[in-house]
């Protein structure tokens, strides 16, 4: 990202925040159950998956409830961030065609809105953690790093699909399938250890898998993550971001005409 562009975005930081916060509030004000609904949604999903998978599959994982809940909340962040990104540009034609501002402002706001929602959902997780008396240890110092690279990864993907969706409207249907497949190939319901090592290696290529696994290690099990996992997830996220950003920059000049 060139320095000039970062300076310009910095000038618009207030716009980014106002849109993100306004959107976050609006989502909850508009439903009858309000803020409660946003907690209910992941909770219902969690309860169903927990009943099915803890009994049916006899998954033997320590603190499976928390293991599952953390996986769901983290995966949901990616789903929300990319879905908001998908509509960030095509959902605001009047802005794009009538006034100038850096277009990525809209995508960044979308990912921040998703982050706010996920932080809010985490309240449930924190309550569970206190209830199960999970010890909090020094390994939590890895958490900011893990969450930062996750944010960068989600932003990279959101930038790419937000721009592609302007030109190819079927991206949104393809994306539904991608997210569905992603839910099952990412270790959300199961630990990677259920697979033979050769298969595990393939699953570990998915940076989101690495991010979720290391987040569980540091939050639930007080296990310091492998530096290889951290480095791989970090580099993969930066590469995805760079690719997503360059796709966005390439397609951005003709947004106003293509909409």
């Amino acid at each position, binding site marked *: 990202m060139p320095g000039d562009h970062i300076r310009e975005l910095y000038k618009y930081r*207030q716009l980014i925040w106002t849109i993100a916060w306004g959107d976050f509030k609006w989502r909850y004000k508009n439903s009858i159950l309000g803020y409660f609904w946003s907690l209910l949604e992941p909770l219902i999903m969690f309860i169903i998956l927990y009943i099915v998978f803890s009994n049916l599959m006899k998954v033997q994982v320590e603190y499976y409830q928390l293991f599952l809940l953390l996986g769901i909340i983290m995966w949901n962040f990616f789903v929300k961030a990319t879905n908001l990104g998908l509509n960030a540009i095509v959902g605001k034609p009047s*802005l794009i065609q*009538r006034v100038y501002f850096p277009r990525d402002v809209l995508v960044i706001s979308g990912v921040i809105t998703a982050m706010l929602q996920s932080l809010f959902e985490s309240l449930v997780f924190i309550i569970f953690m206190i209830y199960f008396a999970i010890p909090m240890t020094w390994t939590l110092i890895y958490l900011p790093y893990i969450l930062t690279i996750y944010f960068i990864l989600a932003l990279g993907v959101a930038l790419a699909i937000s721009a592609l969706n302007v030109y190819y409207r*079927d991206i949104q249907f393809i994306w539904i399938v991608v997210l569905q497949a992603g839910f099952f190939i990412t270790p959300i319901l199961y630990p990677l250890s259920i697979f033979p090592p050769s298969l595990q290696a393939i699953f570990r290529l998915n940076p989101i898998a690495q991010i979720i696994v290391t987040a569980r290690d540091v939050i639930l099990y007080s296990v310091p993550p492998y530096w290889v996992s951290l480095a791989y997830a970090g580099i993969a996220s930066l590469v995805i971001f760079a690719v997503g950003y360059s796709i966005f920059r390439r397609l951005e*000049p003709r947004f106003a*005409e293509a909409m």
Partner: protein
Amino acid sequence: MPAVSVSHLNKVFRIPHEKRDTLFAALTGLVRPPTYESLYALRDVNFTVEEGEMFGIIGQNGSGKSTLLKILAGIMRPTSGTVETSKTVTPFLELGVGFQVDFTAVENIRVYGIIMGLSEREIEGKIDEILEFGGLEKFRDTKLKNFSTGMYVRLAFSTAIQTRPEILLLDEVLAVGDMEFQKKCLSILDKFKREGVTIIFVSHDLTSVRNHCSRTLLLAKGEQVMMGETREVVDRYEKGV
């Protein structure tokens, strides 16, 4: 130094013969490449606008006026040529840009102000003034979707005039509305002129152009037909290009 200088500006729209807006269509396009029609929206346009000047742009529909404004505003990029501006450009192409019906009046004022480059403190200081000007004090926290059309326009207008533009781009869409509203628009224009704001004014209303603009550009089918003293340019336009 001129406020705006435009040289050798070209804008070409490539219009596909057959619209392809899905990934599937794009992939089949690899086998059978799409064909395009090139439409020159602007061809070799050159002009400068001096600091504090009010500059008119006239021409028939489809002459490229709106495209030119959008390029000046940074909303579209030129195909070739350069556009240089010495200060911030404030486009005023439509009332209520960026207004969201699910936001309240105050929230919309905030978002609009930020888009137009005002700081948070400036905006907070102006909210009351804006609502008062539009006669909407009672509807401060009402969502826009519950506004009548008239209230919407009043809010949009009073919000828009509170921004402190340096270079103002004004499109004819402002001329919609009743007599009183148009009068209000023109009085605001005079106020901006007195304050030394550079204004680029696009209009079909030749009387306003005559009264306000010192120089005028006449466009026809994307080409620059004439540029100079407003009187001469408008006379030529009225006689027929």
